[in-house]
């Protein structure tokens, strides 16, 4: 395996985990009674710096202004969600304001990621954009609504339970996204998803050192928007299938199933394990789809029907 690729892989595994964990431990001091606002700030900053440090192991910092989807995610979308979550850490009781800000992130993420692409831009003359304005509005607003609703549902679940099931579910979905991305024909979102998964893992691991009941809701926004963005660009700029993208994005919602089953509320000891097992099912399906796509033999190319005839060549020069 090429050396540069190995460096990216190993750096993406170790650096984000260690960086994120260290920041959470520093901000969570004293560990027996961490201060909630400072801990939330540590979670957000740790997640962010973990992701960027893992990315920069193998890639240069994207230029400003950003020219591609990765640049727009790293310089616009992800910083925006980090800032919104930092604001939310201080505006703890201002839920309406917080959720309006999150709604703006959800509304803008897809549009920003697709900026100047052939989906929205008339690259070959008037009216040649792949999507008409109405189609673009429908698709982008539908995806924005999906992101916002999933965000709301997972936040609600995290308020009901002190388990770490939702963060772990996000990590699993990101690892699945990474695996599928690395197997598909667009590698970069796969590496980004891996960086983010390991950054979140560092946060969760470090939080286990802190006093029980530490609120990890601050990582939900960066984790979920990161998952959405890597799947979004994998599908629209790469060859990630829509079904794999949907399976991976919706996978964390499987954590809700024990809440909805009447007997589920009594499975206190097994509940977290059951949640993780349920999330693993759609992730496994998506990875299996990725493996199948990788192993599918290529189809032979069609014959060109516009080739000149034998008669043209026979008559040449006469």
């Amino acid at each position: 395996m090429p050396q540069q690729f190995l460096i990216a892989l190993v750096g993406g595994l170790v650096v984000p985990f260690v960086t994120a964990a260290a920041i959470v431990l520093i901000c969570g001091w004293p560990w027996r009674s961490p201060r909630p606002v400072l801990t939330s700030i540590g979670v957000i900053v740790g997640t962010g710096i973990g992701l960027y440090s893992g990315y920069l192991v193998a890639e240069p910092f994207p230029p400003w202004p950003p020219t591609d989807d990765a640049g727009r995610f790293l310089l616009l979308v992800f910083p925006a969600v980090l800032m919104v979550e930092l604001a939310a850490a201080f505006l703890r009781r201002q839920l309406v304001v917080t959720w309006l800000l999150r709604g703006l992130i959800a509304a803008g993420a897809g549009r920003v990621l697709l900026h100047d692409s052939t989906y929205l831009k008339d690259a070959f003359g008037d009216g040649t954009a792949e999507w008409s304005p109405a189609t673009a509005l429908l698709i982008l607003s539908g995806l924005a609504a999906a992101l916002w609703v999933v965000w709301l549902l997972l936040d609600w679940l995290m308020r009901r339970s002190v388990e770490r099931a939702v963060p772990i579910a996000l990590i699993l979905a990101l690892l699945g996204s990474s695996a599928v991305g690395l197997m598909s024909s667009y590698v970069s979102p796969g590496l980004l998803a891996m960086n983010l998964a390991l950054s979140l893992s560092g946060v969760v691991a470090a939080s286990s050192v802190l006093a029980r009941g530490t609120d990890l809701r601050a990582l939900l926004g960066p984790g979920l928007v990161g998952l959405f963005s890597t799947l979004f660009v994998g599908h629209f700029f790469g060859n990630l299938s829509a079904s794999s993208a949907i399976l991976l994005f919706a996978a964390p919602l499987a954590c809700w199933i024990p809440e909805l089953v009447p007997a589920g509320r009594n499975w206190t000891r097994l509940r977290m394990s059951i949640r993780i097992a349920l999330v693993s099912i759609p992730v496994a399906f998506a990875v299996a789809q990725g493996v199948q796509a990788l192993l599918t033999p290529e189809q032979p190319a069609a014959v060109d029907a516009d080739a000149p005839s034998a008669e043209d060549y026979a008559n040449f020069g006469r």
Partner: protein
Amino acid sequence: MQKTVIRASVAALLTLFSAAAPSRAADTYSIDPMHTAIVFKISHIGLSSTFGTFKQVSGKFTIDSDSPSHSKFELTIKTDSIDTFNAQRDAHLKTPDFFNTKQFPVMTFKSTGVKAIDDGFEVTGDFTLHGTTKSVTFPLKGGKKAEFPAGIHRTGYTAEFTLKRSEFGVGSAKFADALGDDVAITVSFEGTRK
């Protein structure tokens, strides 16, 4: 009567001379995509070369025989038309890991200076790929003419030059060990006019 005869004679002479006049100084041709090839070669892990082509090309060029410096060449190539004879590799090349065809759907060449040399021209122009524009200079050999099929006048040229993909941001650092930076390019094209 005499004036009428003189006017008619002058008109006849003018008609005769214009019919026997040499071809126009500047001829504008449209690129014939069926007889145009863009082929590139790049090193694969230092063991062999991988070849590929871009199949969708359009453009035009003007050849000014009397004043070659007024000749012009413009070419537009759809990056999505890349073909390296392997569908999986082509799909990867179209992603933002390489050409990012959804973001940069075309690469273009527009000449800024043309100089006559033996067997053709030396052409300088702006080459835009992956959002980056750089000036390139290369010899363009050819210029023979033919009429094929009947009524279609054509001429053709060939150019060979090398670019560094890193100068245009094609292929990130993580592929540096797997792929060479130098890309050898051959462009051979015909243009037609009626």
